[in-house]
Structures are given as structure tokens and as C-alpha cells.
């Protein structure tokens, strides 16, 4: 489980996180939702240690993460997989080299074992015959899937996804959502997904946390979200004409 307690973060005078607290449960797909600029990415980057909080605590099970030094964080980071908004694949490496990178860096596997593991992960995300391709030769959806394969190659305990289906068509977006959900269930990971896509919320949101202007307004499940009387949440969910028509 990952626990965030009173996370507060400002950039100069601009407060982007204000006393956000939440528990993200193991084996579940936890979603952080909110408008663009609401503080979702800052929260996620603070949880993984890419940004330092001004105040607050980050716990990975019984270990307080935010006070650890670089060396001590390393052991937890090896159990983390992350999918970035723009995929963040290494553009000078092939698909295979991207997925194999962590194995080269942190394991003593021989080459055939590594290739076997890479093939398994690529197969798992439905990528075939693309081992020797460069990221620039892949479509947006394929890049996301390769990034997921890279994230899961060392069997992580924690998976973080920042806007995993941004820039994808609705069908590819649903496929990525389902892939994240399946992998979370299969590997019993603690998964946190940042999104502003309501389709994702309804498809995979086992636990949903809503943030607006850096403040947590609501948390619950996807079956409760449509019945909520939280005004900022309703403004967010029913922002589109289609959603309002469906509500009525």
C-alpha cells in the first residue's frame, strides 16, 4: 500500500498541492482524477520522488520514502514501474533495448534469459515483430504499450501511470486502460493512474481520488462517483454536453 499524508507543494507563490492525504491500496487500480493543472502530476511525481514535498509524508508499506536518501530510495525504486505521459522511451534504443534496459542494469541474467523475459513482456502487451524498431517508428498506442512492457519487466510492486491514454483514439485508450487493469490484477501491484478521462474512471477506477486546485475534494469508487453531491466533482464529470445528456 502507498500512503500519502498531508502532501503540500508550492512552486514559488503557487500552491499546487494543499494537504492531500490518501491511501492507495495494493492490488487495486487507484485513479487520481482532475482537470489539467489540478496537481495530479505533481502528486504522482512527489510519490515517486521526482519532486520533493514542502510538507507531508509518503509511505510505501512501512517505509517512509520522502525522508530516504538517494541510495536508500534505490531499493524501492527498483520495485517501481512508471508510464509517462509521452511514454519517455529512450529514442536511441530499439524496442527490445528499451525493455531490456532494466535487466541489463539491475540483474545478472544471461542474454538468452533477458531476451526471453523481454519477449514475454512484449507479448503480454500485444507487441509482436517490433523488437528491432525504434520508438520513432511506432504509433502512439504502441509506444504506450512498449512503455508498459518496460515498466513491468522487473515485476514491480508499484505501477504509476501519468495520463496513459492521452493522445490516443477511444478504442486504443480503452485497450491501454484494460491492459493496466489486467496487469495490476495479474501481478498484484499497487497501481496509481493519473487521468482526466471519464471513460478510464468508469472502466478501471476501483478507487478514485478527485483533486481540484491542489485540494482533494472527494474519494470513492467508480460506482459511487456518479451519485456524489460534491459540486467541483460534478462540474468536472458533467462538463461535456454528452455527459449532461446522459445524466438526465
Amino acid at each position: 500500500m502507498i500512503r500519502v499524508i498531508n502532501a503540500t507543494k508550492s512552486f514559488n507563490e503557487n500552491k499546487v498541492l494543499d494537504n492531500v492525504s490518501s491511501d492507495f491500496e495494493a492490488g487495486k487500480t487507484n485513479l487520481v482524477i482532475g482537470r489539467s493543472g489540478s496537481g495530479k502530476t505533481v502528486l504522482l511525481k512527489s510519490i515517486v520522488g521526482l519532486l520533493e514535498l514542502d510538507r507531508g509524508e509518503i509511505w510505501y508499506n512501512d517505509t517512509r520514502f520522502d525522508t530516504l536518501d538517494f541510495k536508500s530510495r534505490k531499493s524501492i525504486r527498483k520495485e517501481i514501474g512508471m508510464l509517462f505521459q509521452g511514454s519517455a522511451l529512450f529514442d536511441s534504443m530499439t524496442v527490445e533495448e528499451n525493455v531490456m534496459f532494466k535487466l541489463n542494469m539491475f540483474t545478472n541474467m544471461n542474454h538468452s534469459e533477458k531476451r526471453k523475459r523481454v519477449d514475454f513482456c512484449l507479448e503480454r502487451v500485444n507487441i509482436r515483430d517490433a523488437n528491432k524498431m525504434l520508438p520513432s517508428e511506432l504509433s502512439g498506442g504502441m509506444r504506450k504499450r512498449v512503455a508498459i512492457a518496460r515498466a513491468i519487466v522487473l515485476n514491480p510492486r508499484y505501477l504509476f501511470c501519468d495520463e496513459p491514454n492521452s493522445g490516443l483514439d477511444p478504442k486504443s485508450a480503452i485497450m491501454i486502460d484494460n491492459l493496466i487493469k489486467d496487469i495490476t490484477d495479474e501481478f498484484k501491484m499497487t497501481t496509481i493512474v493519473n487521468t482526466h478521462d471519464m471513460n478510464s474512471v468508469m472502466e478501471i477506477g476501483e478507487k478514485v481520488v478527485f483533486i481540484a486546485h491542489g485540494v482533494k475534494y472527494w474519494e470513492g469508487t467508480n460506482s459511487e462517483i456518479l451519485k456524489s453531491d460534491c459540486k467541483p466533482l460534478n462540474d468536472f464529470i458533467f462538463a461535456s454536453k454528452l455527459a449532461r445528456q446522459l445524466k438526465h
Partner: protein
Amino acid sequence: MNLIASTGRYFILLGKIFRKPEKHYVYYHQTMKELIYLGVNSIGIVIIISVFMGAVITLQTAYNTDNPLYPRYLIGLGCRDSIILEFSSTVVALILAGKVGSHIASEIGTMRVTEQIDALEIMGVNTASYLILPKIVATVIFHPFLTLMSITVGIFGGWLAGITTGVISSGDFIYGIQYAFIPYYITYSLIKTVVFAFIISSVSGYQGYYVSGGSLEVGRASTRSVVYSCILILLFNLILTQLLLS
């Protein structure tokens, strides 16, 4: 104040770069790649520049010493010493600051703005060391070879220009480049090259590593890396000359 802060941040980055590598063979492979990108791929430009540099030095020396009191072999001697002492180390380093420095800064800067460095960081990789150390090692190892090549090719260019224009005979030129040769000048030139290679790769790595923003900032970092590298090369050229030749 900004200068002091940047200098401090540069030395902190150097501290991170020279930590023990996570996996030696990964760093070895990375260094081999950089030797190709930053070293072997620079051979062409070094050869072209050196040939023309040597040729121009020979012709300028010849036209400015058109006096029967000066022995003709001094043209060869002047060409040799100019190339060894200054041109093959300093001028070639300034050119490489443009080629190699901008390449390093833009490569690392692009990785920063596309979150590739964040991805490495999340994996638990020491990003400063993984990205910059192989570049420093590759340039420090390979640039002395480029300097030796530049010296050879530059003197050849001088000889070629001298005999094709008829300002000096082949015999006089060859006698000149052998006359009063001081081997220490080569050592001096190579020491300068190693220091300049370190400046180019570490300053450019620093500029790229701390890029924030988008592609515009990557371009600016690339320009800054060339400008700062050139200034530091000229400064250290002066310091090392005083230290090594006085």
C-alpha cells in the same frame, strides 16, 4: 550570485558523475558508443580543418618572411610549432566545442524535456553518471588521438601548400619541421587537449542536464554549452601555457 550558484551546481553534478557505476559493463558499452559518436565521427572535420590550417600557416609565414636574411626552412619550423603549440590543441578544441559540445547538450537536454531522464531516475539509475561519465571518458581518451592526427595532417597540409605554390622546396620544409624540435611541446599539447576535452564534455553535459522547459530551452542550452566551453578553453589555455611553458 548566479555565477556562484551555477559553479556550485556544476561541482555537485561532477560529484554525482564520479560515483561508482551501477553496472560496469553497461558503462563500458555506453563509453564505446560515445567513442564512435563523439570521437570517430569527428575525424573528418578535424582532418579538413587541419589541412587548411597547416596550408594557410605555411603561406602566411612564407609571405611575411620574404626576406633573403631568413632561411627558408623557418617556414616549416613556424608551421610545425604553430600547429603543435596552438592550432591542433586549442583551435581544434574550439571547433570540437561547437560540434561535440552542442551534440552533448542537445542530446541530454532533449532527454530531459521528454522525461527520459525522469524515467531513468525512477528506475534507480544514477542519471548524471550514466549519461555524462561515458561522454567524459570517451572525449578524454579520444581527443588526444584527434590532436595527434591534427598535428600530422596539419603539417602535411603545410608541406602540400608550400610545394604546390612554390614558396618553399620540399627539402627546406622537411628540414624545417625537424630543426630544433622539442618533444615536450607534444606533451604540452596533449595535456591541454585532455583538459579541453574534459571542459567540453562536462560543461555541455551540465548545460543539457539542467534544461527545463521545451525545445527552445534545449536550443539555448546547446548555444550556452558552446559559448561557455569556448570561454573556459581560452581561459585554461592561458593558465596551462603559463604553468607548463614558463
